[in-house]
């Protein structure tokens, strides 16, 4: 779960031009190189691919499912799907959008199978004891901590209530650091549509913050 200060900062201060927060991730190039070697037949490269992809996939899947066990299972399925189709890998193609698109598709399929899509994608019932230590350290007193927890819970609940495509656009841009183009690729839509979906998510979350500000 993202810490409240991180969430607040990103919601209220999106990157200039709506381009999303672009973080440099050393795993990206590592994943591309590992996949390249793996597609060429170097079986040992799968371990490198796992190391480069698994942490980010787990984070994304855990955010989507709120269930560690399901997230781990889907991460395994994602990597096995990449393993099965490694021979079709296009030289020079970016791995991350592919991996995340597979992960998202498998998550949706998994949710449909269990007929509890809303619950699967829901971030509801945010665990009170999961406010990160960084956030907790920043709290001056118990009232602030309580307020932050409530606020975070409301933000998470609002995020969970968003349509899946808006929530995914927000997460890919804000939490995974994807560019608009990469997010559009993962979601199978245009850059304009991703901008619109993310904008709607920002608006919804800003409304929560505004309400919280007025209440205090």
């Amino acid at each position: 779960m993202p810490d409240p200060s991180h969430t607040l900062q990103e919601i209220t201060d999106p990157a200039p031009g709506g381009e999303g927060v672009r973080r440099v991730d050393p795993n990206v190039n590592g994943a591309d190189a590992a996949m390249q070697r793996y597609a060429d037949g170097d079986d040992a490269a799968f371990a490198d691919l796992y190391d480069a992809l698994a942490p980010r996939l787990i984070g994304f899947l855990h955010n989507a499912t709120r269930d560690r066990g399901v997230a781990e299972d889907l991460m395994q399925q994602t990597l096995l799907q990449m393993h099965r189709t490694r021979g079709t890998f296009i030289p020079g193609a970016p791995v991350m959008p592919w991996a995340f698109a597979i992960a998202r598709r498998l998550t949706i399929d998994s949710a449909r199978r269990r007929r509890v899509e809303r619950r699967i994608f829901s971030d509801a019932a945010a665990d009170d004891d999961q406010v990160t230590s960084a956030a907790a350290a920043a709290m001056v007193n118990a009232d602030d901590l309580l307020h932050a927890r409530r606020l975070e819970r409301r933000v998470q609940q609002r995020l969970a209530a968003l349509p899946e495509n808006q929530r995914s656009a927000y997460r890919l841009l804000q939490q995974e650091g994807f560019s608009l183009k990469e997010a559009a690729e993962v979601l199978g839509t245009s850059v304009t549509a991703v901008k619109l979906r993310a904008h709607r998510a920002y608006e919804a979350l800003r409304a929560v913050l505004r309400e919280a500000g007025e209440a205090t």
Partner: protein
Amino acid sequence: MSAALRMRVLAAAAAEASPTRSEIKRRGIFLGMIAAASGMGAFMIFAGLVSGGTLVRLGGEVAPQQHLERSLWLVSTTAGGALAFAATALWLALGRGRSMLGRSRRWLLYGSVLIPIGLLAWKVGWSMAFGDEMMAWPERLGLRCLWLSVVVAVGPLLAFVAMRQSAPLRPALNGTVMGLAAGACAWVAVDLWCPVAYLPHLLLGHVLPLFVLAGAGALLGQAVLSLRRR
């Protein structure tokens, strides 16, 4: 991230064989040959049964005392143009550009709309330029062309889907374009064999199979290409 999870995933991958790039390339060539052989084989068998083995038919009796003959130039122009459309459709259906996620929705939608329109417009345009070629030929409804198109395209369509293996995004739309590509290839063969350019005949015998194949491709794509948990 637990070490046990890592070991489990690596072990699962090691236990399941997966083809490398060179193996996939060989498989693609094999499937391409299967597609071509099945399409041409079906065409020759059908033509052998219906028209005594004549693969290129230039004309026939439109009505008593009325004979229609296509010029070789017209045949090569219409079939050659159709071949160019088929090549474009194949490029769209089988290529993935520089992304592992394949062509964008926009490209696939444009292809789905423009391929049938382009094929029909090309055929009608050149046939109209030759005047009599568009004359009414009510005895030829187009049912034989409909069957020929579907029979010729089925093998290539299955081969195309097998080549692609999976499509994390838009599996049905990818399948649709594969169906249209197979149909466009069949159009070339049918154009050589069928001398009729009467518009109702073209719509029933030549255009309708494109939509039948597109629909079959969509169903096949959704069933085979979409990702599911195993």
